């Protein structure tokens, strides 16, 4: 299981929306955070989010039992640790 937390601020909303397009991804809430979970890897396409550097490279608030395996100009990939 992959679990990724993203803070609910306007700039981060596209990140969550793009993540949510994948069929096996579930988005729920815990306080002001989005909790994004999937049985396998979560992959978010940067261009689809429209995020530029500052938000893109700081959009991960926290990870539970998971690790970032890619976070570059193309994609964010989080996998079970």
């Amino acid at each position: 299981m992959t679990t990724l937390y993203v803070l609910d601020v306007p700039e981060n909303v596209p990140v969550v929306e793009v993540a949510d397009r994948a069929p096996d991804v579930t988005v729920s809430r815990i306080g002001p955070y989005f909790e994004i979970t999937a049985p396998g890897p979560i992959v978010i396409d940067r261009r689809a989010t429209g995020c530029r550097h500052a938000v893109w490279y700081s959009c991960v608030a926290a990870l539970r039992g998971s690790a970032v395996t890619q976070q570059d100009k193309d994609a964010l990939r989080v996998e079970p640790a």
Partner: protein
Amino acid sequence: MSEQQHRVRGVDHVAYPTFDPAGTVAFYRDVLGFPVVHSICAAGWGPERHPDFVHFFFDIGNDDRLAFFYYFGLEPFEGGPQGDAYSRFAEDVPLFFIRSRHLAIHVDNEEDLLDYRRRLDASAWPVEMQIQHETIESIYTHDPNGYMIEITRAMRPVTPQEDLDAELTIDALVDVVSGPDPSMAALLARKAELIVERAAAWQEQREAALP
């Protein structure tokens, strides 16, 4: 969150040395238009062969002040080819580290930011970078002493949840740097525990406090 009362009232002054007081006055007073609001001329005293000096202050808004010390007869100290009037660094010290210490001065809006951009661009110290992050926009240059100066505006107000997020980040950071192997991965894992412990209660408290 600290239980201590928060009683301070902003920056009284931040002080830097200068070996170029004429350039410093030209930059801050004549180019940027920061009024000179205070100065002290003092004869050197004390056991350290302290030179005679002038300590002078510019108003940077909000009654906050940027101050300089000019010491008569003092020569710059050695230390490497990079850096500023206060700190010199060896060639192999990375720029991100050297630039990490800087002064950022706040403006209220884009119009004010661009006004300072025009003042700098018409001077010997033009803007070196203008960066619009999603939440802030800043211009940067170096003053005649080599000190990096940023002028910045917020693109939107800070939200309450960002204050919570900052608290959780810093609590997680303090925890992981006390451990054996500080890393971003360790911080993000610890922060997830803190989110699970505290984020829902924070939200409930906020909603309960709303009218």
